[in-house]
């Protein structure tokens, strides 16, 4: 007759190897993150995660828990990052039926986008001089213009991708902080030194092409249908695996911040013309405020885009949301690529708004 304590003690001496399927693991960074989180978790002696099979082998002793309880127990340290462990193989996420709803919604967005370009919103800006009030209106108009295809498309692809990895709030906020701070600081610098940060034709072309391709890859990934593009996602070298966790955090913090900064230089006619206006202000404060207020004008629409992915991860509509976002991002990517090629004269202009 043994008491409960003794049974626990006896079981504790036995280390067992489990194989779990990981929901939500889809990139090399995930592998590193999961391994580093689990390796330091009580009871774990050995961890090996595999991306191709989306599984993790865990050795260790976890008392007299059943396999299901171990899966639940080991999910605790990684669930904040959007991963869960289970015994049964994950049913393939890509439900084709989601497209029945995602395609019409995406088309609706496309149509809305074209309509917005056709209604002549630019005529709302009638005054030749720029006050802070007009800067704000120009910002609102800009956020509904074709600049949405570049800035909005990039933002949607980024926020939906982060949301898919379970990080919904922080990257979005960092993006907006990066954007607003940059617009104020660089606007001030332009006003103070009196020269604009204009990219030349070939640099703009390279930037356009790069944005278009990144958006295309992210968009296809969001569809969750094709798996080959995952290999195209920038992967971190394995040798920094030791710092995997820190690197992953860094990635989720720095990337959106840098993208926010980069939006100052993205090809958007309104941003460019505001920068040119700012040149004439001749003062840091006035230049900075003009650009900041312009950026604030673009904020409502951009915030709507970036926070569309809030609360979506765990809802049953998540599949539809990510597929719709993927389709919209792909359309914007193609739009940007066609324009980029037309502007340098490689193809004749196709898009005509």
């Amino acid at each position, binding site marked *: 007759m043994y008491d409960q304590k003794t049974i626990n003690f006896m079981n504790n001496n036995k280390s067992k190897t489990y194989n779990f399927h990981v929901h939500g693991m889809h990139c090399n960074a995930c592998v590193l993150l999961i391994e580093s989180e689990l390796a330091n978790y009580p009871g774990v002696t050995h961890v090996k995660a595999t991306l191709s099979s989306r599984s993790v082998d865990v050795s260790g002793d976890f008392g007299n828990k059943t396999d299901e309880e171990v899966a639940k127990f080991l999910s605790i340290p990684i669930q904040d990052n959007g991963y869960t462990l289970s015994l049964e193989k994950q049913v393939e996420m890509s439900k084709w039926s989601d497209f029945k709803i995602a395609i019409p919604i995406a088309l609706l967005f496309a149509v809305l986008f074209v309509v917005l370009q056709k209604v002549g919103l630019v005529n709302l800006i009638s005054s030749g001089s720029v006050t802070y009030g007009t800067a704000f209106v120009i910002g609102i108009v800009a956020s509904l213009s074709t600049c949405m295809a570049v800035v909005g498309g990039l933002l949607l692809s980024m926020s939906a991708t982060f949301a898919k990895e379970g990080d919904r709030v922080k990257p979005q906020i960092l993006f907006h902080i990066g954007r607003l701070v940059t617009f104020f600081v660089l606007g001030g610098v332009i006003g103070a030194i009196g020269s604009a940060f204009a990219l030349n034709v070939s640099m703009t072309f390279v930037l356009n092409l790069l944005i278009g391709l990144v958006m295309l890859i992210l968009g296809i990934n969001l569809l969750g249908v094709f798996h080959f593009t995952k290999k195209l996602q920038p992967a971190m070298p394995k040798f920094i695996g030791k710092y995997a966790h820190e690197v992953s955090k860094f990635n989720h913090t720095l990337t959106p911040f840098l993208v926010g900064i980069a939006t100052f230089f993205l090809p958007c006619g309104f941003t460019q013309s505001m920068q040119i206006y700012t040149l004439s202000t001749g003062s840091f404060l006035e230049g900075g405020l003009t650009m900041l207020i312009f950026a604030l004008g673009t904020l409502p629409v951009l915030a709507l885009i970036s926070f569309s992915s809030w609360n979506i991860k765990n809802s049953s509509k998540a599949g539809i949301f990510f597929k719709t976002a993927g389709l919209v991002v792909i359309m914007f990517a193609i739009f940007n690529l066609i324009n980029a090629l037309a502007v340098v004269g490689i193809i004749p*202009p196709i898009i005509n708004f």
Partner: protein
Amino acid sequence: MKSALIPISIILASLLIVAVIIFTGGNSEALDGNNVSIVDGVQIIEIDAKGGYTPRKSVAKAGIPTVLRFNTKGTFDCSLSIRIPSMGISQILPQTGSTDINIPNPESKTLQGMCGMGMYPFEIDFQS
């Protein structure tokens, strides 16, 4: 109830599109010659730049000294940034004003240009 929202919104959107096409259709197509004048042997082609280029298509004579004149008035959109790839032109217009681009001897072909982001095209058909 929720499932009904999607078809309803699609129908509403399509109605909106049809309305927009009807009300904005036929704006600023080829205005043959109206914007082209010859003053003292110099051909002047005037194009308004705001929310796109008006007229989109101009017809002009090839082989005579030509000035492409872009007029802006409170323009803040992409049409400020003019691109004519075949001539290597990439220029930013003032928000309000008039900017001349000289074409000393235009060949008889169609010159294509667009704004810096590509979605507002314009063309000038130089005919011999």
